[in-house]
């Protein structure tokens, strides 16, 4: 049963991917079950944090939501529509409405194109009008000068590049944005800037955001609800305040304890 204001409604989601390390010379690689029955509602306008260690399936979950991967079981509803097994043609109009920001801006921005063209390309592809105005608007939103349109990615700092990635995503006026570890590669000071930009955009544009991170500090700062994933299963799913006040699962506590706080007297270290 989907809630009235639910943008994503996921039930019993399973994803299995071929294990290329165990692939025999001839024949198919055996499948590994990555996600084992995930149930999830993402309400419109909310910010969902997805945390877990490496291999927990957090990126796979994100990619399945955007239908970059096809689930092997369960259903995904986006705005009421079942998109679990839609083909590429049927997905195309929906793709505009869900955008992604990637971890490494250096490899997700074409080094041979200028910032203006990088932001304009998806707009052209989706046949928008008034492209220039939309590019300017997107740059304004992420706090970059319009003059940056003529720059190449290598001329920008890491934090600025990541803001270009955000500008490209929001230019399409999507309803949903998936941000996959977008601040892990940045310095602490640029991290703070990028998170501020994202935080403001969510409020200004009424975006729904799923924010994947291994860093609970960043999650706490930004998210309303937090899903903790462990080996493809939900270890804990709670409101951010509740999760940090009283973590229920042992795995959540383990993750929290593992974060090195800037305090020489932190317990359990």
């Amino acid at each position, binding site marked *: 049963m989907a809630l009235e204001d639910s943008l994503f409604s996921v039930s019993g989601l399973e994803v299995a991917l071929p294990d290329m390390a165990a692939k025999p010379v001839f024949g198919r690689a055996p499948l590994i079950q990555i996600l084992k029955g995930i149930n999830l509602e993402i309400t419109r306008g909310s910010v969902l944090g997805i945390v877990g260690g490496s291999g927990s399936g957090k990126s796979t979950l994100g990619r399945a939501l955007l239908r970059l991967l096809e689930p092997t079981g369960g259903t995904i509803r986006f705005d009421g529509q079942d998109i679990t097994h839609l083909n590429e043609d049927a997905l195309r109009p929906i793709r505009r409405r869900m955008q992604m920001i990637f971890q490494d801006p250096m490899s997700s921005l074409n080094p041979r194109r200028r910032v203006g063209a990088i932001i304009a390309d998806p707009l052209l592809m989706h046949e928008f009008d008034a492209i220039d105005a939309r590019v300017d608007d997107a740059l304004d939103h992420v706090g970059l000068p319009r003059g940056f349109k003529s720059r190449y990615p290598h001329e920008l700092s890491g934090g600025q590049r990541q803001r270009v990635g955000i500008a490209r995503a929001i230019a399409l006026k999507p309803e949903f944005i998936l941000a996959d570890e977008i601040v892990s590669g940045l310095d*602490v000071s640029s991290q703070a800037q990028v998170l501020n930009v994202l935080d403001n955009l969510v409020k200004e544009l009424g975006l729904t955001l799923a924010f994947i991170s291994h860093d609970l*500090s960043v999650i706490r700062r930004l998210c309303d609800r937090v899903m903790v994933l462990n080996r493809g299963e939900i270890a804990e799913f709670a409101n951010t305040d509740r999760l940090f006040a009283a973590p229920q699962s042992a795995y959540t506590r383990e993750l929290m304890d593992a974060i*090195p706080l*800037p305090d*020489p007297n932190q317990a359990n270290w």
Partner: protein
Amino acid sequence: MSAFLTVDNLSASIRGNIRQRVLRSVSFSIDTGEVLGLVGESGAGKSMIGKAILGILPSAVEVVEGEIQLDGHNLMAMKQADRRRLIGATAALIPQDPLTALNPSRRIEPQITNRLVDILGWSKRDARLRALELLDEVHIDNPERVMGSYPHELSGGMRQRVLIASAFAANPKLVVADEPTTALDVTVQKQILRLIRELQTRHETAMVFVTHDLGVVSKVCQRLSVLYGGMVVESSDVPAFFGGPGHAYSRALLAATPKYTDPEASLLPVDEAVIAQVSGEVLAADEGWRHGA
């Protein structure tokens, strides 16, 4: 007792352009068994210092002033071959990215033992025994199997363990750790930091720990130097620093550091005024340096 490693007034510049300094009169010293954190944002020159100590600066950069004393030897006054022999026998590096630091087409065993055999003249048998002992010491359950594996068959944490084992193989007296846990997730990071601390304490190794994460510094270092623009902005004991840093830039860096326990006082962007102040100090240092030089 004099310090095991002393870096004194070290400046490095872009080759052929002495005025364009990447390290600006850096000084610090480390005693045997002590860990010094070098902290700063990307481009602050923290890795460059580690490279200067190990004599592996990129070819575009050269040391233009200052001295490095390692175990009583002035590195700058030594012949290249002697210097390399001394560094090779005394110091080791734990690199940042375990995947690029290991040769993907060779098994683990020769990647640990080669240095012992080729540079230190050990027999292959001794080197192999030492490698097994080391893998055991870094808590790898099945050393025999790992020795015969290729890097891609190991997880990120395992690879980093192999590199730590390899760094400690020849009983170095100095280890330069260059962001050794940045590529790892938090639970693995904790294990690896504990491991580094354990080995460092047991072998009384002097250590330079390069990182951008003040949280990590507070766990492994006794002292730290904060860098900006290749210049040491502040040097302090760890407990005193985390009690309240002296320099405005250090305070800003600490306030930008994530603390999930205190969301209000963390992840704050560094103020423009603070950047202006510290950039001004860098410029002033350059002015003074040109007049002195």
